């Protein structure tokens, strides 16, 4: 076939793929169309990959050139794709839904590493072209940061590394390292160096920066970090697209880069924290300096049996699931409790705070996994007016998102964060493992409210006992 025709076919495949990415992302914004959106984007991706493997005609200044490729290289490409597909598919299918955020982080890291490797290999082919070198070096740096950062995020979510590690004056060190890496990168682009050693040194220092960047950030902020690293990888892919003048890489990369940045900001907004606070960790500092509310009355303990009675004789119960529920993997048992109560004529709803769980929307996925009806999950703005007609609010493993200090105490570090106004309900039952503060590190006035009773213990254990108790009634 004519090279021009083949080239056009490849271009058409790339155009279709780019369109599917946009349509796919758009459809993923609506619960009804989301699944098809994901599949559409996946189909477009498959098309782009097939076109890249089978059509290697490039447009040059004087016509079209066909790249001859040996069978050996083809075999390697196919082997690599088969290996990647099997591992990716099996891991994605097998992983528990509570472990999903770390999996997303891991896959993101793989993409970053892929971009970094491309940079390592292309450097020596483009020594005479400054524009290409710039794209290569930026792709290499961003890809490496995204890779090592994602690995750290993975380890943190995984629990392997649960305390933020903070070197003395880490903000200054990190900024200096970042400037150093960028200056090193600029040297590689503009000095005309051919040194492979320097290239690998740059790779290594970008990896170190990725670690330094992520390591001081607390586990609860990892979703924001993953979202940010996600948009970094998008950017790295876009630099690859610029390098090869490959439009599908550009569209895919830039879309994810900009959508990912927006998503990061939206997440920060839901937590009422500027992104700079998450990255530079101003939060911990503020909480230590702020005095916090003065304590105010006593804590009331509640037995499982009493809690069961209270729930059994209610008309309307609202469950507030939080991080603790996800950690204890109590999503199935909470659904069992809900079904049991509904059978007895109690109206049950779930109040979902925008940042409940380990990632925004994570709670919905977890509850959906245990077959909770999607219609029972009510978002914050819609449920808040309903609390004053609610008999019992059951808070499971949530803390800061129900802290009234966000509304009443201007000195509180969470002041201004939108919260679930559970204090308006007739009774509040709070299940927590201990009196430890939430990740904001502040006391919760709600626990001292005369209407509040505490039900201490692991969420799964306590809820199981509660269900058993209810069944005897």
């Amino acid at each position, binding site marked *: 076939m004519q090279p021009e025709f083949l080239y056009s076919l490849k271009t058409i495949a790339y155009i279709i793929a780019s369109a599917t990415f946009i349509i796919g992302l758009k459809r993923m914004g*609506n619960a009804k169309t989301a699944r098809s959106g994901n599949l559409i984007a996946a189909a477009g*991706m498959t098309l782009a990959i097939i076109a*890249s493997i089978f059509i290697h005609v490039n447009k040059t200044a004087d016509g079209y050139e066909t790249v001859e490729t040996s069978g050996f290289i083809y075999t390697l490409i196919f082997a690599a794709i088969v290996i*990647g597909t099997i591992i990716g598919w099996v891991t994605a299918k097998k992983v528990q839904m509570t472990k999903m955020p770390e999996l*997303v982080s891991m896959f993101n890291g793989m993409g970053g590493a892929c971009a970094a490797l491309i940079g390592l290999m292309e450097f020596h082919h483009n020594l005479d072209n400054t*524009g290409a070198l710039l794209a290569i070096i930026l792709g290499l740096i961003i890809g490496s940061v995204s890779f090592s950062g994602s690995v750290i995020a993975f380890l943190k979510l995984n629990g392997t590394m649960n305390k933020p590690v903070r070197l003395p004056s880490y903000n200054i060190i990190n900024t200096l390292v970042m400037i150093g890496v960028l200056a090193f990168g600029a040297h590689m682009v503009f000095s005309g160096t051919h040194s492979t050693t320097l290239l690998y040194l740059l790779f290594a220092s970008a990896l170190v920066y990725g670690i330094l960047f992520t390591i001081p950030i607390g586990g609860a902020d990892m979703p924001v970090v993953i979202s940010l690293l996600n948009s970094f990888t998008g950017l790295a*892919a876009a630099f690859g*697209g610029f390098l*090869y003048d490959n439009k599908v890489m550009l569209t895919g990369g830039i879309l994810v880069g900009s959508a990912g940045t927006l998503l990061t900001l939206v997440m920060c907004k839901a937590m009422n924290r500027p992104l700079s606070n998450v990255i530079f960790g101003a939060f911990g500092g503020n909480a230590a300096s702020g005095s916090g509310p003065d304590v105010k009355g006593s804590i009331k303990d509640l037995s499982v049996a009493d809690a069961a009675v209270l729930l059994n004789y209610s008309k309307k119960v609202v469950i507030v699931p939080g991080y603790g529920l996800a950690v204890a993997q109590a999503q199935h048992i909470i659904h069992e409790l809900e079904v049991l109560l509904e059978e007895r004529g109690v109206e049950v709803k779930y109040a979902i705070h925008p940042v409940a769980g380990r990632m925004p929307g994570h709670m919905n996925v977890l509850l959906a996994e245990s*077959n909770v009806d999607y219609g029972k999950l009510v978002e914050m703005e819609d449920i808040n007016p309903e609390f004053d007609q609610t008999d019992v609010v059951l808070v499971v493993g949530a803390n800061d998102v129900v802290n009234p200090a966000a509304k009443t105490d201007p000195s509180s570090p969470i002041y201004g964060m939108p919260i679930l106004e559970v204090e308006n309900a007739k009774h509040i039952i709070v299940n927590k493992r201990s009196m430890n503060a939430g990740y904001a590190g502040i006391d919760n006035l709600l626990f001292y409210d005369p209407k509040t009773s505490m039900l201490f213990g692991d969420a799964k254990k306590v809820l199981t006992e509660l269900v058993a108790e209810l069944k005897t009634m």
Partner: protein
Amino acid sequence: MTEIINFIGNHQEIIFFIILSVFVGVEVIGGVPTVLHTPLMSGANAIHGVVIVGAIIVMLNADPGDYLALTLGFLAVVLGTLNVVGGFVVTDRMLEMFKKK
């Protein structure tokens, strides 16, 4: 300075393209309900797996005798595939749960 200005002039198509894509990216996910943030992040994560196309291009252009390049390229394709396949499959798993209702 002249170089930078000329660089922009010579790459104007791609620069227009980048600007428009940035806005499309922002617009397309604007107004997404919080419940869908996690699947959306995961789906976007799969889409940047398009970087695999770059890895394939590197492999196709590699010299069959250059074992270092082939090893790195092979690794890049494996990692890119993991990103794409794992990303789309895990997103589908999450969204499947919403669909049941």
